């Protein structure tokens, strides 16, 4: 079983829709949660970072973490064609500095927002 499972998609929505992207994890040591956006043929770009349960907002993006359910989500409001990309969740455990603080990634969800 993978430590991180991400809804595989692909997801296709009309412009203006609310998008929900989701990951579940099995390792209760994970304390830090990130969402990356990756455009085609580009490197991933950090979108959101959070370490506490609850919601964190940044413009049209909201990251939600539920540690009791081991579930994280990224919501995109008023989605735009420019949001079309692959979204990757990533997480890391506390206290792993000496072992490189590795991130464990989901496999990504491809999102297309149609004009």
């Amino acid at each position, binding site marked *: 079983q993978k430590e991180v499972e991400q809804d595989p998609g692909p997801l296709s929505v009309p412009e203006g829709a609310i998008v929900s992207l989701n990951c579940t994890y099995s390792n209760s040591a994970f304390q830090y949660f990130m969402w990356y956006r990756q455009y085609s043929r580009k*490197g991933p770009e*950090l979108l959101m*970072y959070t370490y506490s349960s609850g919601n964190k907002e940044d413009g049209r993006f909201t990251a939600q973490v539920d540690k009791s359910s081991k579930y994280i989500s990224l919501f995109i409001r008023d989605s735009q064609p420019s949001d079309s990309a692959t979204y990757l969740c*990533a997480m890391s455990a506390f206290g792993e500095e000496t072992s*490189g603080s*590795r*991130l464990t*990634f989901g496999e*990504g969800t491809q999102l297309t927002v149609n004009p």
Partner: protein
Amino acid sequence: SQTIHQWPATLVQPVGSPLSLECTVEGTSNPNLYWYRQAAGRGLQLLFYSVGIGQISSEVPQNLSASRPQDRQFILSSKKLLLSDSGFYLCAWKRLGLDEQYFGPGTRLTVT
């Protein structure tokens, strides 16, 4: 501000040829550095990471190697490429004590 560079951007190499990919980071010191490979439509596979000059940890046994000759330089190498080495290679860095990693633009390698 910090910037991460990778080169070359694209590479086509025959099977059995050597490989050298370079990554450099500007605007920070003593970063952790990472090499990842991403197969088409797949997630990121961590290949190597480094917490300091000359310190390399390997995550997956394969015919690739990594070196860190300077604080902000990370090199991925192979003596003889295999077809299965094709993919998108990404370098990333992070600050000591923080968890967020920042990625470079990537190198797309095709082994023919």
